């Protein structure tokens, strides 16, 4: 035994010796001392930071990457916006990245516009085509014939695009906006002088009276809204918030509120003024605030007391007089109270916001606050920027009208960046016609969507997980958050960075344009911007920092020339309304499920399952009807019906729902794509097809003022 073992040992040692002489050093390290683990683990797992760009909130995510493949999503712990959580959309970001119908290379329209005959082109070809078009415009001295329509994402790429428009010499640069997911920015602008930095202090509120805003589902920053609600409910045991939801429909917010007040669509403004009447008639309003901080108060008071008695308002809105008085009582007894509304008609926005002035909730905690954070956004190094020769041809939502009104389109070259007005706007049909009249359209879009269908070339941008990301987001606490994330994966397809693409064009155009945009790549410009604030380290690893920008006091919210809050009584004149008649007996109320917030998301299969959870509805468009109203028409629950307005008709499944008024029906927005890949094309119907396509005085499209009829086959 012993002999054998020692013999074996002898052989082994001889082997080692030989090996020691013959093998090079590196091999020795690897073969003879395996305990050093020279090779990486086979199943490497990492959690990488990423910035979600599925909506403008810009939350930070953590992507679980196993063996180089992203396989899981969670919120970034500690990030002020996400705090470790995410919204439904953020959770589905991998479906967006790995969508089977993502464009894999730039494509060019071969036939006529909209003929859907696409052919592949290279990025160089795309560069050359655009360069020719742009130089042609410069040669003819018609720079304003270039127009850029950009996504509302606070990013350096956005700033590059804007600067390109400026130095190219066109005033026609627009940022897309979608009013169903925004606060009352127009009222803020008119009354405070500027809407910048104003926000509702939702997370600390004592009483939230929402005039028609389903804010849990369509807040501009979804994660924050859910968190604010949760904290309001349970984080402070000593004081329970009261949430009152005034809406035609029992929405998710209404279901979660303490009280739901059912109201006729588009009459929330009247109700607010009825409440204002009670406040002033009973002398319950904040006289101190009204006297010291408002201008035009007497006029306002006279108008309200003349026109908006609770009885009259009750008749218009369908809300009982008793309830109007009750709202007024609550708003004065629970202090401070905030009345919130979304970016609906200018009338409603101003009416609701004037209530905040009456109860003195402006510039105070739990009311309306302002933040300076916006000015901490990263900026490009300064450059000489010429003054525009002309004004923009129109405001964003008036573009189609403006183009269709002229014999020849004032825009010859349109650049669209991740926007889809044909689908998202109630003026979709007009947008389509207007786009068809524009000479040449370039669309930066990851999918062939409804607007890109009319484009001449489509350039697919990198997914937000495939490229460097920077984002700026204001929070509900008044902070400004600057976040960075390096790419999580390398690009899956032949996609490009639109920042780089514009910089490339600028370089080739030369002259003033090249010197204002002198960087080789988007990342270089980002580095330059980051160097100014000395945050290179954070940028490199991915991360964020925050600026505290909140300022208290009424004064900080007011940027008007008089230094006072304007009460534009002129906008509060009673307006006529179309009432349901025999031919179109129902009001149409359009709601936006959180899954399709900002109107987007129907291309992601997991989001389809969420849309109509309260009725078990998914993967189709349904129309909510009160059972009593449906029975009168003989419409069964689950029957397919037509919903017809004077402007169009769509098909939907009728669903009996007790959470809707008898005189109103409701349709979800987000479905009914005619393009954008297999999971959205041909599924459901788009309620925007039923709308008149008019714009309000606020400049925003009108969503909630159409009458419809419903019938079976």
């Amino acid at each position, binding site marked *: 035994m012993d002999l054998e073992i020692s013999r074996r040992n002898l052989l082994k040692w001889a082997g080692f010796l030989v090996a020691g002489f013959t093998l090079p050093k590196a091999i020795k390290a690897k073969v003879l001392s395996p305990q050093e683990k020279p090779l990486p683990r086979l199943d490497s797992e990492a959690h990488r930071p990423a910035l979600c760009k599925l909506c403008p909130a810009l939350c930070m995510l953590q992507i679980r990457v*196993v*063996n180089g*493949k*992203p*396989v*899981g*999503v*969670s*919120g970034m712990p500690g990030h002020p916006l*996400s*705090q*470790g*959580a*995410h*919204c*439904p*959309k*953020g*959770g*589905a970001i*991998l*479906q967006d*990245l*790995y*969508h*089977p119908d*993502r464009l894999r290379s730039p494509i060019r329209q071969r036939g006529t516009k909209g003929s859907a005959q696409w052919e592949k082109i290279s990025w160089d070809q795309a560069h050359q085509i655009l360069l020719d078009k742009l130089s042609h415009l410069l040669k003819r001295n018609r720079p304003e014939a270039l127009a850029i329509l950009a996504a509302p994402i606070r990013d350096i790429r956005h700033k590059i695009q804007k600067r390109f428009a400026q130095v190219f010499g066109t005033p026609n640069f627009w940022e897309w906006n979608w009013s169903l997911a925004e606060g009352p920015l127009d009222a803020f602008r008119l009354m405070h002088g500027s809407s910048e930095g104003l926000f509702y202090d939702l997370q600390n509120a004592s009483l939230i009276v929402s005039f028609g805003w389903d804010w*849990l*589902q369509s807040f501009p920053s*979804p*994660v924050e*809204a*859910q*968190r604010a*609600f*949760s904290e309001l*409910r*349970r984080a402070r045991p000593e004081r329970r918030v009261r949430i009152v939801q005034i809406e035609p429909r*029992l929405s*998710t917010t*209404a*279901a*979660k509120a303490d009280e739901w007040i059912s109201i006729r669509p588009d009459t929330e403004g009247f109700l607010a003024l009825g409440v204002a009447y009670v406040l002033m008639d009973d002398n319950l309003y904040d006289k101190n605030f009204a006297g010291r901080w408002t201008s035009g108060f007497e006029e306002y008071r006279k108008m309200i007391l003349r026109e908006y008695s609770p009885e009259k308002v009750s008749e218009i809105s369908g809300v009982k007089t008793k309830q109007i008085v009750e709202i007024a009582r609550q708003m004065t007894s629970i202090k401070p109270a905030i009345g919130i509304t979304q970016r609906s008609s200018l009338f409603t926005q101003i009416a609701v916001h004037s209530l905040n002035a009456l109860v003195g909730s402006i510039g105070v905690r739990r009311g309306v606050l302002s933040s300076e954070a916006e000015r901490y956004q990263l900026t490009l190094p300064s450059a000489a920027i010429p003054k525009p020769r002309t004004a923009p041809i129109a405001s964003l939502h008036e573009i189609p009208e403006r183009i269709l009104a002229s014999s020849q389109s004032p825009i010859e070259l349109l650049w669209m960046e991740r926007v889809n007005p044909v689908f998202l706007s109630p003026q979709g049909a007009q947008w389509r016609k207007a786009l068809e009249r524009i000479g040449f359209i370039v669309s930066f879009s990851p999918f062939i969507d409804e607007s890109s269908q009319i484009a001449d070339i489509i350039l697919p941008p990198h997914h937000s997980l495939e490229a460097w990301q920077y984002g700026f987001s204001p929070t509900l606490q008044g902070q400004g958050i600057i976040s960075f994330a390096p790419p999580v994966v390398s690009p899956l397809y032949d996609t490009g960075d639109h920042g780089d693409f514009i910089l490339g064009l600028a370089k080739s155009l030369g002259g003033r344009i090249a010197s204002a945009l002198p960087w080789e790549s988007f990342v270089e410009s980002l580095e330059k911007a980051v160097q100014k604030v000395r945050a290179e380290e954070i940028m490199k690893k991915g991360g964020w920092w925050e600026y505290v920008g909140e300022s208290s006091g009424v004064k900080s919210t007011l940027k008007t020339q008089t230094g006072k809050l304007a009460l534009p009584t002129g906008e509060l004149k009673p307006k006529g309304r179309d009432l349901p008649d025999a031919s179109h007996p129902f009001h149409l109320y359009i709601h936006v499920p*959180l899954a399709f917030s900002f109107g987007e998301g129907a291309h992601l*299969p*997991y*989001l*389809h*399952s*969420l849309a109509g*959870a*309260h009725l*078990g509805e*998914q*993967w*189709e468009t349904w129309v909510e009807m009160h059972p009593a109203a449906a029975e009168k028409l003989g419409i069964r629950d689950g029957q397919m019906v037509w919903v017809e307005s004077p402007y169009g008709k769509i098909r939907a499944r009728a669903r009996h*729902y*007790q*959470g809707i008024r008898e005189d109103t029906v409701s349709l979800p927005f987000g479905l009914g794509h005619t393009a954008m890949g297999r*999971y959205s094309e041909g599924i459901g119907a788009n309620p925007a097809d039923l709308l008149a396509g008019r714009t309000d005085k606020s400049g925003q499209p009108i969503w909630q003022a159409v009458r419809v009829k419903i019938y079976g086959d």
Partner: protein
Amino acid sequence: MEIKDQNRRDFLKWFGAAVGGVWAFTSRAFAARGEDEQVQARGKHRWGMVIDLDRCTGCQACVVACSVENNQMLGGPEEAALGRVIRWLKILPRTEAEGSHIRQSLVPMPCQQCEDPPCTRVCPTSATFMNPEGIVGQVYDRCIGCRYCVNACPYTCKFFNWGEPQWPKETQTPFNPDVSVRYKGVVEKCLFCHQRLQRAKDKAREEGRKIEEGDYVTACQAACPAQAIVFGDLNDPESEVSRLALSHRSFKMLEELGTKPKVIYLREG
């Protein structure tokens, strides 16, 4: 008679021996099984979940997080029309109307992880069972698709795969490697993200410590922006779930059935 008697005695003898043999054999099998159960009884944890309906906003981030974590089917209009889209965690709506007064609650419904689960009792193949830490499991390879458990579950939280799931090539890339992709003919259900428990255990062992609160987090809890979902060990009286489970607001779904769910809800208000 005598001969017959003898035969009868023989018969009884042999029959007895046969029965005895079979009994002895099967009892050995049972003994082995009993041993398993002994081993299993060592499980110290009892995993449970508290869902605070007062915090919950009905946003359904949990539903998406659950789908992503557990490679759930994409679904489509055809499946939706037949009610065959599988979501282990879904929102159960309840609308109560009395005249003009309407209340609606949106209740997130994962598997209730009963302590006395009706589904495991009817499973002929032990494909569904309760594991030593109280999680009601499902082993797809044992499942024969009889759907007894689907019918037995009073919470409708077991789902049958009626067809081969459709996964375009690209959508297979982000599969969670820790979770298998189910196929036609098997039943599936929420397993409290069991794969995360395995990972948490591995990690704790690697660091030479016991599993602690916060190591094992389900996907729905991690995603919830309203922090309405709390998950943890019900056996640990110090844990957040145990504390919340004692709240005066707590209730269990269909408690009267005696299923003893380990998902506990907290009422609104």
